[in-house]
């Protein structure tokens, strides 16, 4: 026994000692938390709109300033025309949205695969140090070898179906999530571990009662950053292996000089990524607020 734990600390063993927003006014703490939450959601939406405006400004600005050929560089108006106002718009929309559906499905597969692998891996790493020492280099390897170089091997082993989509998407997602979650699991102060130890808890109980709750903010941060990663992975798998979805469509459109379709595809997948990122942020704020972990400064 190295540390003496004050009895007060044992009262809330599952809570992480994140400084909770302390209401300075007589209002109940709950309403202050709700306001913080609404502010956070509002901020997410503002970020979303801000990004949207920035992207459109850069897009249009680049075309104007660089005087790009209008045959190749389509403007936002061209994309709107392609998707909504020209006679074939309904057909064009169907092509793009079908492909987007496939891509989102692929992204979801990669997202789940990568995140599950990251969480399981992180828990194993924390429970058994040797596992971390053995497997972390493998994770590093996955990170440092370009996926495009590995793709032919992955395709040879896993074929050109869902398995390859899961593997390629999973590889894109797993590393940042793994590092984040491992750091989160280790973030709990040692004093809390001591409490569990004093009460005779196993190392699994330690992970369950202390490390996992402490890792919630990092887990949700991982989910948020994994969303665009999963979409990248899906596009990559489609380009290299399956040939369907937006990844296949965009590359074929480029080689067949269907630049309207190409730009519409890029726009739609970018919008989807931004929207899903914003959604992940809102969910993150909701859950963390529920857990009392929402930092008012964020």
């Amino acid at each position, binding site marked *: 026994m190295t540390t003496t734990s004050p009895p007060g600390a044992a009262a809330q063993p599952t809570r992480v000692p994140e400084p909770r927003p302390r209401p300075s006014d007589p209002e109940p703490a709950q309403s202050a938390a709700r306001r913080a939450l609404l502010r956070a959601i509002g901020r997410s939406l503002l970020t979303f709109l801000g990004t949207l405006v920035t992207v459109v400004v850069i897009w249009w600005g680049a075309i104007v300033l660089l005087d790009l050929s209008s045959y190749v560089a389509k403007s936002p108006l061209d994309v709107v025309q392609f998707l909504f106002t020209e006679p074939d718009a309904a057909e064009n929309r169907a092509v793009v949205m079908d492909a987007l559906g496939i891509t989102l499905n692929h992204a979801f597969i990669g997202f789940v695969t990568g995140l599950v692998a990251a969480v399981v891996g992180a828990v194993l790493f924390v429970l058994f140090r040797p596992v971390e020492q053995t497997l972390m280099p493998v994770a590093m390897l996955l990170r440092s070898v370009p996926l495009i170089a590995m793709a032919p091997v992955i395709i040879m082993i896993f074929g050109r179906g869902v398995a390859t989509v899961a593997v390629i998407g999973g590889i894109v997602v797993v590393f940042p999530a793994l590092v984040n979650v491992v750091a989160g699991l280790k973030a709990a102060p040692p004093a809390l571990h001591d409490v569990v130890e004093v009460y005779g808890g196993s190392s699994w109980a330690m992970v369950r009662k202390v490390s996992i709750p402490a890792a919630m903010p990092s887990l949700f941060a991982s989910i948020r950053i994994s969303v665009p990663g999963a979409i990248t992975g899906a596009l990559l798998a489609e380009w290299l292996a399956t040939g369907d979805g937006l990844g296949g469509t965009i590359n074929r459109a480029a*080689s067949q000089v269907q630049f309207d379709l190409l730009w519409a595809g890029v726009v739609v997948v970018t919008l989807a990524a931004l929207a899903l990122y914003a959604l992940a942020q809102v969910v993150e704020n909701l859950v963390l607020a529920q857990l009392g972990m929402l930092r008012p400064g964020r």
Partner: protein
Amino acid sequence: MTAPSRRRTLTGRVALAATGALAALALTACGSGDSSDAASGGDADYGDLTVQLSWIKNIEFLGEYMADTNGYYTDAGFSSVNLVAGPSTGVAELVSGSADVALSDAVSVGTAVANEDAPVKIVGTTFQKNPFTILSLTDGGNITTPEDLVGKKIGVQDSNTSLFQALLAANGIDPSSVEVVPVQYDASVLTNGEVDGYVAYLTNESVIVEHQGFSVANLPFADNGLPFVAETFTVTDDAIANDRDRIKAFLVAEIKGWTDALKDQDTAVGLAVDTYGADLGLDAETEGLSATAQAGLIVSPETEANGLFTISDELQSETVASLAGAGLDVQASDIFDLSLLQEVYEENPDLKAYAE
């Protein structure tokens, strides 16, 4: 949408006004090709030349290697030549301005013209007959008729998508009955069983795979509704109008290069294997066999009479008919402009006799 041959939009004009000095500079640079030097003149300065190749740097571009090595591009007035490896149809590179000339095929170019109003034209062709085939193994896909494609998994390079769709359309095969998977330039996807068929060249992958000891089956495009010219020289309408002499200078260098390549095939194949395609690990023996088979596509009674790269009216209408069979409505004049090549041969009659 009508053909926008680099039209200046309103926004483009605003940008031009804003960056007046810069634009003036750029225009001067672009105009340097308009000099009145004859195409064959040695003292013209046509600047840097970028050629987008349709494929990796194997024996398909022997003439380009010879023209580069023997200095014909520089003789013609180009300060440097950049041969960019494919796979690519080159049309996107042409219209975006990143390539001056693209080597591809008449159906890919025709599809881009018919569907997307691409402002490009074919000014000559290396292959009088296209060698495209669906390559399969006799103990695998064994695809010998268009109907054999149904239910098969076919590896199609992105750059050959239009071509494959044209093959299906010309033979009335429902595209949804064939599974298309994206592949690159490596035909090993066929031998390792990933795909049942692979879009290839009769004169190249077919020869290579057979030489590896496999028994191969072919479904040649030319015999199945799609006779058209390939390894075509494609340029933008803008270049034809404003850089005519530059394109003609390029054609002169190409004719000289391919004349050398046909005369001295061994040297040319050596250049492909040891220099230009050195990092591809090409096998000299099979590349030599490929080159011999390929030579049969380049020369014909037509080229003997009228010179290399010529496309007879008959070949032009065959190509247009191939496109029509695939549901694409274009006129020969929409995709071909042989007037530059004609002028080259009028100005340099000695180039015609490539065989002597």
